[in-house]
């Protein structure tokens, strides 16, 4: 059981203030989604947690250990182009096993785990295929399996389904919920899709821009997720209210009367 703690975290790029006073905790087995208007800094926050960006100040720690860079306790899944096209599916999944950080770990155990992950992600049939022979959805399954191979305490996902079509996304949603049940990693998930966030997350964190800060946190209290739930009134209420929050914070509310005046000439 691990705890990721973000406290009073700030980030500036030169004179630009990207994030201000971010507080967030994430436990193993928890699913937190970050949503917000573009430019709110949700991806920046995820990349800071992943150690790919530095924070300007504030606390970022796992179980009291301060984070200073990337590490295999926080594996990341990207939107696209992150697989190694010269390696087969199974070689991509096993990539981390060739790194020094994993030296001395039981090899047989690793082979068993790679096979289990292929099974979990429905990749057994394409085990020896190359990434360029797979569809976008299958490629993202490989990317997720590769990240899970590292047995991370936390799985960081940066709009992982953003490039997929709606049907494939729905399949991936149920798959990732299944992963959450079996793997017990804490998941921090960036998306611009509110429906996706409500469907997947235990908590939805709305970030607002100028500068990026936490606007509101929503505890999602819904029964077991099924695709039909997306049409249930309580689901739609969450979706509507969160969407309204994002709209209100984005400053991008369309002035319809001005548009009508424009159209009227």
């Amino acid at each position, binding site marked *: 059981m691990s705890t990721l703690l973000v406290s009073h975290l700030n980030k500036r790029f030169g004179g630009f203030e990207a994030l201000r006073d971010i507080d967030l905790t994430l436990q193993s087995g928890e699913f937190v989604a970050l949503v917000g208007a573009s430019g709110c800094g949700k991806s920046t926050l995820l990349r800071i947690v992943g150690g*790919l960006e530095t924070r300007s100040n504030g606390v970022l720690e796992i179980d009291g250990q301060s984070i200073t860079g*990337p590490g295999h306790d*926080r594996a990341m899944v990207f*939107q696209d182009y992150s697989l190694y096209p*010269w390696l087969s599916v199974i070689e991509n999944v096993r990539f981390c096993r*060739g*790194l020094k950080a994993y030296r001395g770990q039981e090899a047989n155990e690793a082979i068993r785990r790679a096979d289990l992950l292929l099974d979990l992600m429905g990749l057994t049939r394409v085990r020896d295929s190359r990434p360029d022979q797979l569809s976008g959805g299958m490629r993202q399954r490989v990317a997720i399996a*590769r990240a899970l191979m590292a047995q991370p305490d936390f799985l960081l996902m940066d709009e992982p389904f953003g490039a997929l079509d709606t049907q494939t996304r729905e399949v991936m949603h149920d798959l990732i919920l299944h992963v959450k049940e079996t793997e017990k990693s804490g998941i921090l998930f960036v998306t611009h899709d509110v429906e996706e966030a409500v469907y997947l997350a235990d908590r939805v964190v709305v970030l607002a821009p100028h500068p990026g800060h936490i606007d509101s946190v929503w505890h999602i209290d819904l029964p077991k997720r099924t695709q039909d739930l997306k049409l249930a009134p309580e689901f739609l209420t969450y979706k509507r209210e969160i969407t309204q929050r994002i709209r209100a914070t984005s400053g991008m509310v369309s002035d319809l009367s001005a548009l009508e005046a424009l159209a009227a000439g």
Partner: protein
Amino acid sequence: MEGVKSQPDQVAPRSLWTVRGTLSKPLYRFIALTSFVLLLTAWWSVTASGIVDPMFLPSPQDVVGQAWNWATTDNLFADTGISIYRVMAGFALSALMAVPLGLYIGAFQPVRAFFEPLLEFSRYLPAVAFVPLVLLWAGIGEASKITVIWLGTFFQMVLMISDDVSRVPMSQIEAARTLGATNGEVIRKVLLRSAMPGMFDTLRLTLGFAWTYLVVAEMVAANSGLGYAILQSQRFLQTDRIFVGIIVIGIIGLITDQGLRFIHRRLFPWAKK
């Protein structure tokens, strides 16, 4: 039923002139062959008509005859051999230095800051102008010819290799880092592997540059080689021999280029263009 056609619609085949269109392999080869045949025919008709002095433009038959002559009574194969050796030695020296340097320029910004402006400057220095200096520094042996070819290829090669490395998608690098890869592991297991097909193409292109510098290299106190033979023939106005030299270099270039393309497809089936 009215309004329902019993015949399938005739679909017009896709035009060959679609931008970024496709072409079947046999048709591609046919068109490619046509260009050579046309060139040869034009050359032959101009010389056969007698409107041009053979001193300026020898006929294809004369050139073939001269090639036979050079191969049997003179030393065409020795000249070709020594030229291939010089090109390969200069090229290999460039590649041995350019690949690691380009990799580190593409990997680390301080290395880029140190070398890139220097290389951009050096790239514009004319290799030909270095000939007297090369003579002075490297003497009149093989080293001077290899140095000229190195001068002509190295700077371009490093910059192109570093570009190949820069084109590796950021998410491939960052995925490795979040899996706990060290800098060395990112370079060896991601950058090098991912950039390899691009680097291979860069080497194929710069091998062509190396051949173009051959004649310059063999201006430097040489007494053998295709470039040397071309320069000698200039002195005696043996235009047919100049043609043989040029065509032999062209054929070697064409064969190596096609060979390297074939190897590329075999080594990197995942790198589609």
